[in-house]
């Protein structure tokens, strides 16, 4: 029963579903709507009860608080917080243009649009966005591998461009250090580049068939890259040797056609070797790659969060609920947040079944 499987479990219902959850501090996340018209961007504070460690029992506060809110004229498909600032950058998934936002301070609860950055190409696709702590603040963005650039927020100046000819749409962009980043394409190709040099990046071809592929990279000291295909093939490589595969496995998922934005794969920030997957089944699955070998084998999830399909409000035969995104808490080892197409958002702290 769920009393034993979870240390903490919180279930919320947003007015509108979100496909982004982005940390803006250790206690706050941003969510935003993705309908075709006007949408809300909300900055939510996690329930105090979850965060209070020694004083947990004396804290009754289980609710999310909306600490800041604003309105976007279009859908929000991607939202990235610029570390060290109260600025966020969004993209509507329709063009490669970016919108800039001020998330607000203590004196106001309104999130305001402060400007926009023109996109890198005339593509009809949305951009991926990435940022890391830098001074002055910068943002890495682009819809496809040939149009990735690093832009200075205040001036709009282009500081760096990824020199790649291929026009493959990107599935993700992520900084793995202050100056290096991974650009992952939907076809499974990944590029590891350094923003300090204009030399061509290291490229690694797709590790197999069955595109689209999704990728996540963990920074030092683990330096691992995981690539996941829509058929559930998982390939783990070392960041410093992308061409080689450290280990492979076949995950326990259904093979259904998926759009690139449906699937999220993420390394656990504080659990070595663990990673999570959502969008390939109706659940969030957590796997431990510790025991994996070079020869592919079947892997079973260490833990599965079925909450969204179980408590789905669409019991009347309408479209099944699917998970739109999920994230790990940056420090708390087993705390995750997941969101689904019915507007539900769950915050859960799971118990490792192996420790019972």
């Amino acid at each position, binding site marked *: 029963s769920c*009393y034993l499987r979870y240390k903490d479990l919180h279930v919320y*219902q947003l007015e509108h579903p979100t496909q982004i959850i982005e940390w803006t501090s250790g206690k706050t996340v941003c969510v935003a709507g993705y309908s075709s018209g*006007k949408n809300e961007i909300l900055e939510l504070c996690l329930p105090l009860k979850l965060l209070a460690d020694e004083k947990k029992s004396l804290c009754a506060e289980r609710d*999310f608080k909306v600490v800041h809110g604003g*309105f976007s004229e279009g859908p929000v498909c991607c939202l990235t917080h610029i570390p060290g600032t109260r600025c966020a950058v969004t993209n509507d998934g329709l063009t490669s243009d970016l919108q800039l936002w001020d998330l607000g301070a203590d004196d106001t609860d*309104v999130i305001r649009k402060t400007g926009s950055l023109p996109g890198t190409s005339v593509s009809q696709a949305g951009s991926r966005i990435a940022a890391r702590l830098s001074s002055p603040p910068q943002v890495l963005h682009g819809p496809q591998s040939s149009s990735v650039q690093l832009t200075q927020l205040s001036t709009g100046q282009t500081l760096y461009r990824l020199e790649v000819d291929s026009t493959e749409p990107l599935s993700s962009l992520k900084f793995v250090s202050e100056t290096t980043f991974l650009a992952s394409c939907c076809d499974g190709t990944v590029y590891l580049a350094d923003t300090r040099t204009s030399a061509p990046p290291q490229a690694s071809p797709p590790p197999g068939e069955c595109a689209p592929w999704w990728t996540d990279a963990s920074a030092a000291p683990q330096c691992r890259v995981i690539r996941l295909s829509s058929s559930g093939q998982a390939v783990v490589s070392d960041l410093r040797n992308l061409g080689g595969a450290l280990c492979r496995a076949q995950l326990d998922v259904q093979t259904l056609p998926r759009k690139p934005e449906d699937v999220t794969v993420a390394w656990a920030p504080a659990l070595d070797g663990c990673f999570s997957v959502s969008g390939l089944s109706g659940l969030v699955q957590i796997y431990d790659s510790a025991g994996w070998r070079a020869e592919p084998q079947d892997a079973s999830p260490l833990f599965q969060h079925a909450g969204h399909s179980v408590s789905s409000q669409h019991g009347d035969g309408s479209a099944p609920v699917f998970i739109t995104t999920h994230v790990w808490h940056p420090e708390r080892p087993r705390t995750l947040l997941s969101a689904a197409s019915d507007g539900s958002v769950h915050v859960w702290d799971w118990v490792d079944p192996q420790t019972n």
Partner: protein
Amino acid sequence: MPEIKVTPLGAGQDVGRSCILVSIGGKNIMLDCGMHMGYNDDRRFPDFSYITQNGRLTDFLDCVIISHFHLDHCGALPYMSEMVGYDGPIYMTHPTKAICPILLEDFRKITVDKKGETNFFTSQMIKDCMKKVIPLNLHQTVQVDDELEIKAYYAGHVLGAAMVHIKVGSESVVYTVSVNKFALCHSGAAWIDKCRPDILISESTYATTIRDSKRCRERDFLKKVHETIERGGKVLIPVFALGRAQELCILLETFWERMNLKAPIYFSTGLTEKANHYYKLFITWTNQKIRKTFVQRNMFEFKHIKAFDRSYADNPGPMVVFATPGMLHAGQSLQIFKKWAGNDKNMVIMPGYCVQGTIGHKILNGQRKLEMEGRSTLDVKLQVEYMSFSAHADAKGIMQLIRMAEPRNMLLVHGEAAKMEFLKGKIEQEFNCYTPANGETVAVTTNPSVPVDISLNLLKREMALGGPLPDPKKPRTMHGTLIMKENLVSSEQALKELGLNEHQLRFTCRVQLQDPHSDSDTLHRIYTHLKSVLKDYTIQHLPDGTVMVESIVIKVSSSAEDANAKVLLLSWSYQDEDLGSYLSSLLKKGLPT
């Protein structure tokens, strides 16, 4: 223009001591009269000097309405009625009337006896105040006087909580503190659905909250109880109100059954008596629909839950006990607490807010050593758990309420200004929204409709025209004349007041004439002819080739088909209708040779 004025005296842009003044149709109403729990001096009361600088409030208020029994909504009522002075009617629902005096007395005891305060109301004042209370039934229209009508609706966030509809003539205000999902579904969607009050006043406190599901709260509660029972500990749950205790009992009963647990669960008799009393009150107070949805179980029908006896507290082994009062400040729950506090295997679960000064409040603040009577100290070793089961609305619920009611204007109270901007912006996408500070008056212009009787003949005639039956969703235009006996004003003033533009109406007419002369000659002949016939009128022959008779303009042009024919174009404004038609008939007869 007519207007409704709203002034928050407390909880304008802050939290605590809700008290709102509404002036509507010449009537003055006070909504709630709360105490601010954070202050120890006069700041805890609303500032009544706004109503009058000195003297009693009776002459200045038509009535007072209390929304629910929480002290930040009724805590200052005895002070207002007995110390400042008010003898008019005070309206509240039956359960609120039953519970208020108990809470007020408890609160008075703690403030005066334990904290030694002096400028505070007495027990007698509470009693005298409650004598002025007129209880309200749900959905029942109450005529406060000839013109002022009020009606209470189920709000549901605590026992007895009500939304109030206030009506004077065709102007109305709806006041709600909070409303839970249940109320939105069951309160009779008919009334709130598009009731379209001129103003909907609501608290914004919970608008920034997104509530954790009930299931998760219950899960947490059961987990804590289970863990304690498993290690052989005892669980004390101090409760006050009916709803809470019964809900938790049902939860435990089901859990015990599912997990096949054997530890005893007890329900203190003091609570049972009170509970039965409130249960009866609650059941008669709500309407059929609400009653049906609540589990109608008698306290004693539980399989695993039994009546408590004092001696059981000393029994060894695990058990769960529900006891009163809720804040551990006296009575049975305190006695049990004293017995169990020294054992770290035990647990006390506080299911709600505790007033400052109570033991409940102290332990929830982490205090582990308590000073008891006779200077003895109590070491608190048992686990203290604070859980919240309140059923307030949240962001979604408030927007739902507003969209259902469709007010002409929205007014938010009970929130900090900086934290209301986003909600205000959100509401303003669909409705006007005000967020007044304490002491700030918002004057909302209303556009009251004037109710009019329709003559039977006119109605019959409209019905005879056929077509679909009258339907509020499909208004049908009909024509008639309204006879009113009112002031006479100039049309300019009337137009200005109604905000209408003046429209000019002009008629044109063509007259064919056989005339072989040139256009200008014909025009001149017309001019001469008219001058001789219409001696009393202003007739002008203008240089632009027209003849004007008063406001009537006459132009001449040659006919395209016939060289000897002329086409006269006459144009006149509505005011000169008579003259215009006379001229056109005159000219049709032709010109004298």
